[in-house]
């Protein structure tokens, strides 16, 4: 665990992102330097419009910087084609969105399977891995349900399962608890904390939810597109919880 902690997964050097809004030019990200090491459980927080979602999109290769360099898993992503970026997202990054964003026509099982299918993993192997991860997030019994037949918390757990099923180097979660009540949000965070601790999955959140910050071991505050502070803790809230509690809490979500 210690050795992986020193390997940078994400490196941002003097990253700028400028938007045009009508005639106005908005500097959403303004000279950010940031390094995320493997195995981190980090929150980027700040008020609305501070640039945290833009920063997450840049790290997730969903957007390209106006200036500066971004390396993901050691690879410079600034000059990659759309197709190469898609491939990089597919193989190295998992996403959890605020609005769950599951594919409505697919069941829970199929939503999780989708990423593996896109990677070209054979069906038998896919089935094994999807069933294992669904069991881990406590949704094995709901595997044949479609998103519309699941609660918000259940959908978000499917989204987390989808994000981690292909063993990505990094999971980006944009306000993952924003649409959940506090109890469900806590259960979800505990589940992600357990995945981080047990499988060394690197999590990077954008949030203004104090509970997410409480669970995180590193908090990067961003104001007006610049990093205002970068604090690390020895423990997050999830670390203090006994690991045996996880499935119980997850089921409640």
């Amino acid at each position, binding site marked *: 665990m210690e050795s992986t902690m020193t390997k940078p997964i994400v490196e941002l050097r003097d990253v700028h992102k400028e938007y045009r809004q009508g005639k106005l030019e908005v500097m959403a990200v303004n000279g950010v330097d940031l390094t995320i090491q493997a195995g981190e459980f980090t929150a980027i927080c700040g008020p609305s419009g501070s640039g945290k979602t833009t920063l997450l999109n840049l790290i997730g290769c969903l957007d390209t910087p106006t200036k500066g360099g971004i390396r993901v898993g050691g690879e410079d992503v600034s000059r990659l084609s759309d197709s190469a970026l898609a491939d990089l997202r597919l193989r190295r990054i998992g996403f959890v969105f605020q609005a769950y964003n599951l594919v*409505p*026509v697919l069941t829970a099982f199929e939503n999780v*399977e989708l990423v593996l299918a*896109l990677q070209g993993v054979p069906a038998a192997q896919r089935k094994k891995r999807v069933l294992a991860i669904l069991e881990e997030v406590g949704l094995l019994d709901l595997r044949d349900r479609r998103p519309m037949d699941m609660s918000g918390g259940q959908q978000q757990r499917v989204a987390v399962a989808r994000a981690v099923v292909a063993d990505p180097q990094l999971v980006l979660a944009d306000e993952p608890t924003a649409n959940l009540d506090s109890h469900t949000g806590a259960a979800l965070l505990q589940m992600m904390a357990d995945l981080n601790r047990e499988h060394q999955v690197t999590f990077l959140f954008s949030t203004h939810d104090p509970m997410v910050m409480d669970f995180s071991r590193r908090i990067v505050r961003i104001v007006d597109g610049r990093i205002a502070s970068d604090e690390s803790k020895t423990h997050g809230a999830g670390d203090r919880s006994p690991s045996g509690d996880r499935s119980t809490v997850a089921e409640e979500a």
Partner: protein
Amino acid sequence: MLLKMAFRNLWRRRFRTGITLVALGGSFALLLFFVALTEGSHQLMIDLAIRMQAGHVVIQAPEFQKERSLELRVTDPEDLLATLGPLPDGWVVTRRIFTTGLLRSADGSVMLDNLMAVDPVNERKVSDVGRKLVRGAWLDAGAPGILIGEKAARLLKVDVGDKVVVSCSGLTQKVEERFLVAGIFRVGGEADRGTAMIDLARGQVLLGMGDAVSQLAFFMPPDDSFAAARTLRSKLAGRPVAVLHWQEALPVLTQLLWVDDISMQVFIFIILVIVAAGILNTVLMSVMERTRELGILKSLGMKPWAVFRLVLTESLMLGLLAVAVGAALGLPLVHHFGEVGIDPLALTGGEVMEMEGIAFTDRIHPVLLAGSGMVLTAVVLVMTLLSALWPALRAKRILPVKALRQM
């Protein structure tokens, strides 16, 4: 997985997909039916025209096509037939003389614009007149019988067994002869007034033609006609006769069929444009509604061309289903009317369609050729894919970061 998603996406808006399917399937059924109707009416027109005026292949004097005169004749028909040798099974050859004249009775006269002297045995096998006798009987070889149309009989106030006089120009002089009305036919249109048939041998004597005829008409299975024309042409090379395929012998009909084909193609094109607009609308709506979802698929790592393929696959499925619905509606329709036929008068509002003295009064039996059905299916599917190209390209170009901002 792509197929599963595409299929389920299609049924997300059941009502819209259903309406699109009914519209597209209905259009396809309509296309199948009209193509079959056109084919059926063409076959009927060709069949009637060939029976009355030509054959699948005809042999006649080279200039006869331009001017139907007795001088322009085939002087040695039996020698020509001997040169050709035995005819293949299923072939019939009939000898004909075409001229014009006047038909008189005690009560009146009518102009004959198509007085035919025909080989009574073989002409009987192919003639439309033989099938449409309303009274009396077919010509007997060597007998002074004449077949006349129903209108002519009414004008002349004659019936079967009555005497009539035929006056016409023979090869060298004006001639006149009495005939007995052997049969009265109703083929529809002007032919019922201006067409009459007499026995060939009598005609040859009356007209001073000797052994000569105006035309040797060959009948055969229609698919053999082009090859047959080539064979006859090569066997008779150097002889002073023209060997014509029916398309050359009946240029007006050929042209009419060609114009009709063009109109049909324009009609098909218009229907296909409507089909394309329907598909474009459905697919474009579906892509625009799912911008966020397609953006999510791309953010998860689905490659741009895979998104493109997903949309095209959905459209292709829509097209295939529409073809299936169309076939389910159209084929029974074609089959039913293929069996019972359609009265051409119902299509023309009671007006008899007539061309070169041939009236098309027989029931039209729509025929769908396998080739036409396959071509139509392929065209509809290609059209479906083409009309889905733009929505699919739009989907391919969706930027995940913008799509995710949409609610």
